[in-house]
């Protein structure tokens, strides 16, 4: 059996890569290990009648530019007109309902705090263009930058400089700093600080006092946009439809077992079933470790590349608790608001303490949770009147130390702790609980095939972004093996910037001819 280009993984990255390749007239075969299309973004029924819109419901940083360019409206993709507000508890009992656009925050903040938020928002807006440019382009080729690349870099530098000296220097000061420091300087209201910081820490293993966390706050605030209607799984559906129209062959239950590499590069992929599919090129959206250390035969890559992939840290730290509820949660102090997104932490210290336990590989004693209620925006996810809540705790160690590691007892403990955190901000959630499903980092590893169980195939950290995602030698999608490309969440931009890696890696493959 033979194919032209094989894409491993039918998640968002894989589908974006496949579509990009197909529209450039390549014949594409996508191999998906699981039974359905979408990878971790696939819609899943976790309890009869109750569905998720993907493992990770956050779709505020998907690269809209790429999706617009792919013209997916014809395949059912719609975008929401605004982002849902984020609820943050406040000691007064009246929680803050935070919206990224300051003009939508009337009444929530006192005038001086509002002015501070406007100033912060303005800085983020001014640098958004430069940041988007960095996110949406491949990292530069530092070994031998082409003229056009040097030009592009120079343009960006100039754009930065034209921001104005004080803005540029503010950026130089903010970028390496801790979110705690930036938030302490920029805002006074603790709940507002939490609103900006908490969601930005997802995928890191850091607390707000860690240097470099400001970058994640900045990226999120500057680049977040309204999400697709129906969440990540609707994105998958539209991509799938477009792929089919473009002639992409989508195969499920087709796990890859190994790659065949010959003198001219990648030659074929061997499936778990034993089938061997020859190909001219292969683009893998699986985790770098999986592709290069499990699928590529041992000894093919030089030790330095193997070591680089091994050092790319992918210790999952997010646990996802899916709740089937008899009714949507009602949040204390804002009972009648149709809240879709909330965090349970009232202050940055809570975030810091929870992150501490990752260092010691223990379960957080008092976890904070991020709650999303996707059924509010997409009622098809739950039976009428009922609700689905996705509760995430971002400080759950993959390799739990002590307490006998992961067991029924520790899973129960974690579930109870996460439910208790929900109950604190949305009393009555426990009573409305019909069913639940907990996915710990090891569960995520097992179910979605990503070593380490990290939701983004690799930690978000200053040293694992851009030129270093997943490593200097691999950051431009090509690998030392001709015809083999990496294009998953473990490549640039990766992380929550879904779609980018798939498109950019496909383009790299096409450029190589």
């Amino acid at each position: 059996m033979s194919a032209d280009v094989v894409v491993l993984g039918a998640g968002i990255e894989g589908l974006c890569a496949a579509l990009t390749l197909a529209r450039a007239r390549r014949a594409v075969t996508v191999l998906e290990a699981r039974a359905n299309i979408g990878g971790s973004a696939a819609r899943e029924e976790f309890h009869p009648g109750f569905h998720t819109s993907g493992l990770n419901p956050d779709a505020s940083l998907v690269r809209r530019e790429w999706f617009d360019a792919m013209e997916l409206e014809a395949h059912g993709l719609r975008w929401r007109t605004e982002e849902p507000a984020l609820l943050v508890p406040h000691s007064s009992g009246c929680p803050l309902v935070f919206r990224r656009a300051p003009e939508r925050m009337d009444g929530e903040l006192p005038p001086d705090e509002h002015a501070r938020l406007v100033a912060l928002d303005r800085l983020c807006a001014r640098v958004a263009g430069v940041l988007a440019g960095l996110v949406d382009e491949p990292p530069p080729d530092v070994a031998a930058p082409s003229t056009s690349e040097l030009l592009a870099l120079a343009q960006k530098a100039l754009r930065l400089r034209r921001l104005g000296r004080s803005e540029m220097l503010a950026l130089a000061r903010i970028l390496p700093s801790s979110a705690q420091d930036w938030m302490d300087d920029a805002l006074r209201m603790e709940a507002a600080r939490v609103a900006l910081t908490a969601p930005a820490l997802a995928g890191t293993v850091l607390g707000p006092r860690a240097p470099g966390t400001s970058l994640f706050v900045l990226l999120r605030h500057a680049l977040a946009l309204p999400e697709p209607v129906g969440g990540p799984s609707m994105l998958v559906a539209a991509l799938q439809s477009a792929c089919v129209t473009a002639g992409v062959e989508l195969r499920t239950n087709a796990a890859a077992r190994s790659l065949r590499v010959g003198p001219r590069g990648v030659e074929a992929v061997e499936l778990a079933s034993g089938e061997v599919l020859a190909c001219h090129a292969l683009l893998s959206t699986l985790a770098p470790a999986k592709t290069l250390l499990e699928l590529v035969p041992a000894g093919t890559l030089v030790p330095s590349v193997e070591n680089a992939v091994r050092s790319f840290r992918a210790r999952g730290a997010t646990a996802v608790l899916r709740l089937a509820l008899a009714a949507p949660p009602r949040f204390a102090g804002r009972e009648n608001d149709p809240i879709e997104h909330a965090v349970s932490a009232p202050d940055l210290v809570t975030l810091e303490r929870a992150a501490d336990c990752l260092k010691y590989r223990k379960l957080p004693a008092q976890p904070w949770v991020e709650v999303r209620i996707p059924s509010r925006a997409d009622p098809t996810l739950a039976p009428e009147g009922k609700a689905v809540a996705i509760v995430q705790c971002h400080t759950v160690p993959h390799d739990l130390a002590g307490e006998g590691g992961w067991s029924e007892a520790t899973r129960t403990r974690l579930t109870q702790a996460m439910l208790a955190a929900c109950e604190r901000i949305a009393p009555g959630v426990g009573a409305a609980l019909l069913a639940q499903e907990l996915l710990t980092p090891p569960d995520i590893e097992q179910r979605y095939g990503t070593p380490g169980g990290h939701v983004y195939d690799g930690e978000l950290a200053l040293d694992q972004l851009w030129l270093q995602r997943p490593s200097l030698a691999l950051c431009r999608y090509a690998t030392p093996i001709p015809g083999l490309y990496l294009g998953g969440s473990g490549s640039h931009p990766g992380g929550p910037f879904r779609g980018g890696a798939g498109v950019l890696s496909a383009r790299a493959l096409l450029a190589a001819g």
Partner: protein
Amino acid sequence: MKTYDAIVVGGGHNGLVCAAYLAKAGRSVLVLERRHVLGGAAVSEEIFPGFTFSVCSYVVSLLRPWIIRELELPRFGLEMIPLEASFLPLPDGDSLCRWSDPELTRKEVSRFSPKDAEALGEFALAMSKVGRFAKPVIDSPAPDPGSLHPAKLVELLRLGRHFSQAPGDELELRLKLFSMSAVDFLDEWFESPVLKAPMSVSGIIGTMLGVRSPGTAYVLLHHYMGEIDGAFRSWGFSKGGTGGVSNAIANAARHFGAEIRTQGTVKQILIEGGAARGIVLENGDELRARTVVSGCDPRRTFLGLVGKQHLPDEFAADIARYKYRGSSGKVNLALDRMPEFTCRPGNGPHLRGDIAIAPSIDYLERAYDDAKYGDFSARPYLNVVIPSTVDPSVAPPGKHVMSCFVQYAPYHIKEGPEHWPARREAFGEAVIDTLQEYVPDIRGIILHKQVLTPWDLEQEFGLSEGNIFHGELTLEQLAFLRPAAGWARYRTPVANLWLAGSGAHPGGGIMGAPGALCAREMLASGAGR
């Protein structure tokens, strides 16, 4: 009344270096030091009769060889004694000692991990390469990316090329070094926690960060930059304590014609017509000068001696935002005899360097956690030296001084910094308790104990919030951002006022570089003539 060419406020080592260079160039210089003794935090004092304590700083690292040469410091009394060992006692009775001799080190480390022992050489080589790249950065003024001046842009471009022009693996190493945590970085080279714990800790000295905090890896370079300073072994003890360095610089300055006064407290910098014209002493006397140099930290200088009203708003905001957050304290002991470490008994060469109490990475992180939440570490990281083992001048025969650098001791304890005096005793006891776990009879041999909390460092030595570096050495406060964007070349917004202390580039430690580079800029601009 005499008008000096320059008055230097503060007789710390940087201020003295600046004064020496200015005097050497023929300027008339007066140095005013508030305390009775020179040196600032690089000071030796006979706290207990017969015992000379290096009260604050205790080892000299990276004192710039070119400064030693140009000021002829050995001639004026500077004598450096290299550190031969880095000893790590462990709670289980074992211990690791790393030596300046790589072979001896390899042997010791191979007991814990043969793989690590092999990796050490490669690691040192890789770090030295990066150190070579970083060295020019500390020996010249910080580039200014905000300027569009062609000369400055060329400088920036050169630095950019300098950074990225390297074989792939070297570039990757540089990228990692500047973005990773010390632990993550070391995890890629070594497996033994016994090696990683004491190595990682250099990344957090003087900062409110943990060994797992991003941005702590690059400080590992420190050790390897000392190596390449060649014949002038710039990492070691100073004979007579660290005050010996300051005294040598002061001697040089006096030789070149500088006037130095102690017990002269400057209350204010005299500002007339928006320019510095001299200083006002505490007793009201005025002294005039064409330029004023401050060796004090930025807060003390600008918000204390100058006053906010004389500063542009943006600068004042930057100075207010500049972070100190002292994280360390000091316990200095006069000992009746040599302390006995149960895990490696005897007065051996392993005690002639530095001794680290850093038994594991978790231990270090817990120490950091205590500080994060507003208390001193119940079980702190200690860096201990017993200089009397190699420098008989600091203690009577058979007796010893033991200097313990303690982390963490947060200036901002939860009750507020002014509560520190009430906690001083408990803080000192926590340190002795910790030592006792390795030296069971320590309490019985203490003749005198001096405990310095961050509050004491601030009150007695003028270090704001007890920060030993005149401000945190984190990326957002380094180079062109130190102490404030646009003012990283020793000039200040106040005409004729210059900053020469560690709050200027390249920052803290006993380097002398800020003082010397400030003097150079001053002389190049014709200041003080």
